[in-house]
């Protein structure tokens, strides 16, 4: 029979007290406890300790424990439902806002595209002639011998080629015609200013280019005539800018003649008065406006024929 160590004995003391070991081990422990004072005291302590624990009334769960558990489960469930509903609502709201934003973006995109198309590619002549087919046909038939030379067209490669403009103000109906007669003094002064601002006006370039009518032009483009031509060109450019500002469109321009520039434009009726006022107050324009037509009531646009010419009297 082997002798127990104190540590082994103390490890088995609880089982010894609870009577959960076999008889041989029990005898060994009993013998050791009787011989060892330390283990005897430990055994005594454990007996009191375990007896005291055994005397404790086992606490029970508080009343209504099950209901409280159910209450908490219900609360958790409602929180989850609320969270789910909130998140669902949030998702729906977000989707709505996103859709709205997308619609707006698409709308703006379309508008921008349309406006850029309108700006970049002017309406073909056929469309305009559809509007005033009879009038245009008559105008073409009775057109004076004015046409754009091919070299003049080729000198402006980036601009859309403008058709030769033929206007008979007496026959064309539903169109307004304005004759802008510019005094020579004003022409001289303003042209000098404009030449200073624009050192290389278009007219100069045209002079340098060899053209079929170059001989005629060279004869007329001397001294005052040259200044006047530059002035006319400058004015037509200013008018073109204003047309763009007022959302109009240049249907055609005839700058073939150095003394007269004819511009045919289409302008929204809502902007017509403002455009005319702007023309009158245009710093460089010091001529008179002669109304020789009538307003077209059938269309939202009004076709204007502007004639810029120098008063040489």
């Amino acid at each position, binding site marked *: 029979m082997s002798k127990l160590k104190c540590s082994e004995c103390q490890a088995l003391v609880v089982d010894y007290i609870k009577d959960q070991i076999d008889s041989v081990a029990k005898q060994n422990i009993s013998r050791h406890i009787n011989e060892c004072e330390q283990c005897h005291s*430990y055994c005594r302590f454990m007996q009191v300790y375990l007896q005291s624990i055994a005397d404790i009334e086992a*606490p029970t*769960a508080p009343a209504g424990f099950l209901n409280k558990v159910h209450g*908490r489960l219900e609360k958790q469930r409602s929180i989850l439902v609320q969270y789910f509903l909130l998140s669902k609502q949030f998702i729906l709201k977000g989707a709505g806002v996103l859709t709205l934003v997308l619609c707006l973006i698409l709308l703006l995109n379309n508008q921008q595209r349309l406006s850029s198309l309108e700006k970049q590619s002017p309406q073909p002549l056929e469309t305009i002639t559809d509007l005033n087919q009879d009038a245009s046909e008559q105008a073409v038939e009775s057109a004076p011998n004015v046409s754009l030379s091919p070299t003049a067209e080729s000198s402006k490669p980036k601009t859309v080629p403008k058709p030769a403009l033929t206007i008979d103000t007496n026959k064309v109906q539903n169109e307004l015609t304005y004759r802008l007669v510019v005094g020579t003094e004003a022409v001289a002064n303003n042209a000098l200013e404009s030449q200073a601002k624009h050192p290389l006006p278009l007219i100069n370039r045209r002079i340098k280019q060899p053209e079929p009518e170059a001989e005629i032009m060279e004869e007329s483009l001397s001294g005052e005539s040259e200044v006047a031509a530059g002035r006319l060109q400058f004015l037509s450019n200013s008018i073109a800018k204003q047309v763009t500002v007022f959302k109009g469109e240049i249907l055609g321009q005839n700058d073939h003649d150095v003394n007269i520039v004819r511009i045919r434009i289409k302008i929204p009726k809502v902007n017509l008065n403002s455009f005319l006022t702007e023309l009158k107050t245009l710093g460089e324009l010091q001529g008179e406006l002669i109304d020789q037509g009538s307003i077209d009531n059938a269309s939202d646009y009004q076709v204007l024929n502007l004639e810029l010419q120098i008063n040489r009297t």
Partner: protein
Amino acid sequence: MNESIIKKQLNDSDDDRQLISRFIAGDIRSFDELVLKYQDPVYRLCLQILGNSHDAEDCAQEVFIKVYHNLKSFKFEAKFSTWLYRVVVNTCKNKNNSLEFRLRKLYYWLDKPEAGIENAYLPELKSNIDSPAQAFERQEVTRAICEAIQSLPLDQKTLIVLFDFEGKTYTELVAITGYKMGTVKSKLARAREKLRSKLEGVID
């Protein structure tokens, strides 16, 4: 171990299995039966580990909520009671480590340093025919033992409560706590040594 105890445990295990199977099948009332069956041991264990009736009740409720949510994943690899005790131990550990729990203990101690633990568990003795003097003495000893147990580190306290109060075996302690057998035994021995030194003079 007695045959009757083993039989009872087997019967309990079968009952639990049936209840869990019914719950998984969708019978919510079987969960109520499980709660009613285990609410006392779970609450008792929480109370003895945390030493506070308020926290013990809260923790016990939390345990059953966890059981409710996780019972469907129970694989019957261990006894339900072992799994349940493991959930209790882990929940108590989380509660004990929570900042709220520790701060509340600290504030209460700073406010009333002499009052001990807030809502502290005061053990009641089983009704015996002791004389009033003997009853008082026993009451004092029991209270001292409980206070000494409460002063132990959580892991040692858990083992002491499970082994001495709940009567779990070493094997069950291994399954519940996840410690190795040697660790369980050494921790228990150290806990008893500490208790003995703390109760010196109270228990001769």
